[in-house]
Every structure is written in structure tokens, then in C-alpha cells.
């Protein structure tokens, strides 16, 4: 189904799905960190910005007369580089993450969003700044672009433009991300993360290096965020620093919606993160597309004081968070498990 979707679905809906995939990758990393290692983080957008910036700087060609940094590496290597750079940024935060825990950590990671805002606007030679940003280097393999429409390609009578190709690229990245995460959860690091989450003191007594477990969790989660940042930049076709801390791709709003994804999906659940992302990232865009064609929606959304798609989505995910925390701390994942259990019998 997923593979054939671009043959049937219009470009604009592909874009909506792709946007949800960006959220999914970032949220998978966050759910590993918060769900398995017990470290609540609002800093994900910062690592996304780091990844997106690293990709743009590594993959872009240096241009004469431009202040922008461009190394000119092949895009595949640039993506790997971006993930590595953002993981290192995650490691750099480890000393703080190692000392501070619980609620204090959540607020401490919030400072990363502010740091990202400052650095993004300060180092315009990397980010392109908040004014115009810098174009995203297209993702090409052997001269075939997966994010623009060069060279032209038609599959079964359907022209494969930028969105159709990006769909496949993103699909590969998401599926890869899911399987890596599932692997990590089952493996040794995953077990040590959970031991640290449940009780750091007894984990240490059992021989787990608590500081190291926390640091790896941070690095892994930052790596996922970095990849999501690359995807965000490719999706926009543009890397741009945010204008303020409350709105934008790397903002507090983004941090809170990512947190919402993993809570609604069920803390720690990889598949839950994917579902949650479809909801939190996909719904506002999907609603906006539906509004003009559904008269009922149009009548309640219009004008001052209207229930706009972003208001509806905020209501929906705000109250879902509340409901999940009170009634179903396992989130969508737990509900899903219960349903499969019932029908599986």
C-alpha cells in the first residue's frame, strides 16, 4: 500500500504524510529517551536544527560570493554526517543530563530551544539566518534526485515529481528508524536504559554505568532528531532559523507537540510514536486541506474567534494528553495492544 500510494494520492496529500513522517522520526528518538531511559526532554527541536544545519552545510557546494558554508559532500554522506553531528551535540549535553534529573531536566532541556534560537540567528553562515534561510541541497544518488523533479521520470503513466520521490526516501528513513529503534529497545543498551529509569541507584548496584546509559540515550535520541531535522529541511526545500522561540520548526511549540506525540502514542512505544506523529503533525495540515471542501468545517473555522484547524488540533491533542495521562498511561500503543489481544484470542 505504502509503496504504491504515490500512484494514487495527489502531491499535496503526499506532503501531509511526509510531514507526519518527519515528526515520527523525531518522536521515535524522544520515546526511546523519555520512555525507556526516563529522561523527559523538551530539547528535541534543538537537535533537529543541528541535524538540518549540518546537512545543509555538508551537502551544499561552496559558492563564490556567498557567505554560506558549503563542503560539497555527496548527500548520502551528508545525511550520515548530520546524524553524527547531532548525536555528538547530544553527548555534549550529557554532563548536564547526567547530573540533573526529573522535572529539573525537562526545564533544563528547554534551554536548548533558546540556545538553538540564538545560535541559529547568530551563525547565519551555517543556517542562512531567520530572514531568508538557505536552500536545501537536493538529495541525489548517482545523479538521480529524490527531492526534486530532475531528471524527469514517469511510472505507470504518473509523472514522478519531487513529492512522489521524497515519499519513498522518507518511507525508507522512517522504516529504517523504526527497526533500529525496535532493535535498540530489545538489546543490552535498552535494558540498561530501563534499569536506570526504574531506579538509578539499584541499576548502579547491578553494574550499569548510569552516566553512560544516560549519555547514550541522549546521543541516540539526538541522532534521530538530527535525521528528522534533515527531513524537515528537505521537506521545506529550505533551512531557515526561526524568528522567535514560540513558533517555527525548531521552537517551543515544536518541542511540546513532539512531547505530545510520545505521550499520546504511549511513552516508550515506537509504533505509538508513529501513530502519535500522524495525529499531531498530520492532523493540522489535513484539516486545513479539508476545510474548504467540508462546508461544516468551513462555517466553524472562518473569521475572528473561529475554530481554525490549529485550534481544533490543539484542543484535540491537549485533551488527549490529559485523557491519556489519567486513564491510559500506556497511550495509543496500550489501547492497540488491548484490541489485538481481544481479537487475537
Amino acid at each position, binding site marked *: 500500500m505504502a509503496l504504491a500510494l504515490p500512484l494514487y494520492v495527489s502531491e499535496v496529500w503526499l506532503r501531509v504524510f511526509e510531514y507526519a513522517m518527519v515528526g515520527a522520526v523525531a518522536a521515535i528518538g524522544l520515546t526511546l529517551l523519555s520512555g525507556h531511559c526516563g529522561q523527559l526532554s523538551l530539547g528535541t527541536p534543538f537537535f533537529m536544527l543541528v541535524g538540518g544545519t549540518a546537512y545543509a552545510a555538508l551537502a551544499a557546494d561552496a559558492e563564490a560570493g556567498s557567505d554560506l558554508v558549503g563542503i560539497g559532500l555527496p548527500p548520502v554522506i551528508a545525511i550520515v554526517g548530520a546524524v553524527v553531528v547531532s548525536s555528538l551535540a547530544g553527548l555534549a549535553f550529557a554532563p548536564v543530563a547526567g547530573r540533573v534529573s526529573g522535572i529539573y531536566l525537562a*526545564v533544563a532541556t528547554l534551554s536548548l530551544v533558546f540556545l538553538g534560537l540564538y545560535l541559529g540567528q547568530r551563525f547565519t553562515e551555517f543556517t542562512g539566518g531567520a530572514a531568508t534561510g538557505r536552500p536545501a541541497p537536493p538529495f541525489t544518488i548517482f545523479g538521480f534526485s529524490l527531492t526534486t523533479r530532475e531528471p524527469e521520470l514517469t511510472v505507470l503513466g504518473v509523472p514522478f515529481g519531487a513529492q512522489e520521490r521524497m515519499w519513498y526516501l522518507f518511507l525508507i528513513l522512517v522504516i529504517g528508524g523504526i527497526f533500529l529503534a525496535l532493535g535498540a529497545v530489545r538489546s543490552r543498551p535498552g535494558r540498561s536504559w530501563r534499569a536506570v529509569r526504574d531506579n538509578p541507584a539499584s541499576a548502579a548496584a547491578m553494574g550499569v554505568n548510569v552516566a553512560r546509559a544516560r549519555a547514550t540515550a541522549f546521543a541516540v535520541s539526538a541522532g534521530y532528531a538530527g535525521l528528522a531535522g534533515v527531513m524537515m529541511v528537505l521537506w521545506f526545500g529550505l533551512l531557515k532559523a526561526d524568528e522567535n522561540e514560540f513558533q517555527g520548526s525548531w521552537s517551543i511549540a515544536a518541542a511540546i507537540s513532539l512531547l505530545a506525540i510520545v505521550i499520546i502514542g504511549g511513552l516508550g512505544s515506537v509504533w505509538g510514536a508513529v501513530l502519535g506523529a500522524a495525529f499531531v503533525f498530520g492532523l493540522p495540515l489535513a484539516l486545513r486541506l479539508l476545510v474548504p471542501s467540508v462546508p461544516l468545517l468551513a462555517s466553524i473555522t472562518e473569521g475572528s474567534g473561529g475554530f481554525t484547524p490549529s485550534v481544533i488540533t490543539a484542543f484535540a491533542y491537549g485533551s488527549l494528553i490529559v485523557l491519556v495521562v489519567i486513564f491510559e498511561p500506556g497511550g495509543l500503543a496500550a489501547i492497540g495492544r488491548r484490541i489485538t489481544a481481544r481479537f487475537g484470542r
Partner: protein
Amino acid sequence: MSTFMQLTINGAGSGAVFALLALGFVIIYRASGAVNFAHGSLVLVAGYITVRAQESMGITVAAILGVLGAGVLAVIIERVLVARTRGGDPIALVLLTIGVDVVIVEEVARRLGSSAPFVRVPWANEVIHVGQITVLKGQIVALCFGLVIIAVLFALFRFTGWGLAMRAQAEHREAAALMGVRNTQVTAAAWLIAGVLAGIAVLFLATPDFAGGGVSRATHSLVLVAFPAAIIGGLDSTNGAVIGGFIVGLTGAYSQQYVSFEFARVAVYLVMLAVLVVRPSGLFGTKEVQRV
């Protein structure tokens, strides 16, 4: 020199308002063990009630209504939602209040539309000149409010049964319950006080001289600046909240003038990070004990 003096006054003045906000965080943290991310929405609701009521009833009645409204809302949030969270896990409570905040802010912002009315408090736009220095009346009033509230809280904690219960509960919730402390009332009262503080704070925030904008989404954003104040002081220390407020206000003022506005925003958070690395529970906070 007079620029430096004026900056100090400016910074201390906004610090007084941040202290009021930070106190709200601290009181709830002591009672419920939760950082209340919905504090900003309490401020916003109080502001909304005040600006809607001030036309017909005058500012005094409107402000009282706003303050009470925020107090009642805080109690409702506590009774209906927070109290039902299983085990009172602090992380779950943070998430819960984030959810509540998202919904309330969105609703108030929707109702306000593009308008951003000011609260018509008597101290708005009033200044006192002392030599070359200008002091905002509003900030002096905020400071007085802050000091009075701290004194009252101190007296409450110290000399009333409620205060004793509150202190017992902040020390150890279950043990306090076993010894007959009624958690329910103590906690609800704490949320009421925090809501009232939020309602008072908005009377200083949504004025042309403090923020330029009236009651709007931006008012909610300002509350975020009080976060570092509460953390720097230590989440369970009322004195810490006040000192944290001043640290944040002064850091902001000096770095805005002597470095840049861009840096000032991150500077506050860098100070917070530095404090956390050295003292993971803030300057005056109680260190968490790790139990096996």
C-alpha cells in the same frame, strides 16, 4: 552611570513581577510535587476575565473577579485532573499540565481574536522620578505585593495547622497522610493560592509599560520567563523564588543593554543551566534523596 542605575531599577522591577510568578510554581510544587506548566494559562484566564469585566464593573471588581477566577480554575484543575493521576508521578503531572495549558491558552486566544486589551490598573503608565532615575509605580506595587505575600505565606506555614500540614506533606506525602494530614484540603488550598498569585501577576504584566501588549498569547509567553526564576531559586523554596525572580530580571536587563537582546534571552537560561550543574536542585532547593 545613570544608564546602569536605570537598568538596575528596570531589572529589579521586572524581577519583582517574575518573583510573583515563580512563587506560584513553588507553592504548587510543594503541595503536589508537580511543576505546573499550566501556570501561564491561569495568568491568561485571570487577565481575560479582568479585561472583559473592567468595562462594566470598574477595575477593582474586575481584578478581584479575575483573581478569584484563576484561583477557582486552579482548584478545579487540581481536584478534577491532578488528583486523579495515578501515583502522583511528577513526570505524568508535568505532561498533564502541559495538556491543560494547550487547551486553555488556545481557547482564550480564540476568544480574544486579534484584540489585546490592557488591564486598566491605576498604576499603569505611572512613574516616579528620583533624580535621573525613573521608577515604574507598577513595579513598586508588584514588589510590595510580593513581599506581603511572602510574609503572609511565611506566617501561614509557620503558625497555622495548614502550614504544618503543608510542610509535612512537602517532606513526605505518604507519611504525612498516615499521620492524619488531610492531603486533599492542603493541596487544594495550595492550588488556590497559586491561582490567586497568577491573577495578581497579570495586573502587572498586561499593561502598556510592562509589555506593550495587553492580554494576549504574549502574556502567556512572558510566564515562561518565570520558569528559570523558579528553577534557579529551587522549586521548593519560596525565598528562592523571589531571589530567582530578581536574578532573572537583572540578568535580562544587563545582558540586553551590554550584550544584545538575542543573547539576553538565552543568557537567562544559561544562568539556569549553570546553577543546575553546580546545584542540581537550584540555589535554595532541597536536594532529592535517592532511595534504593
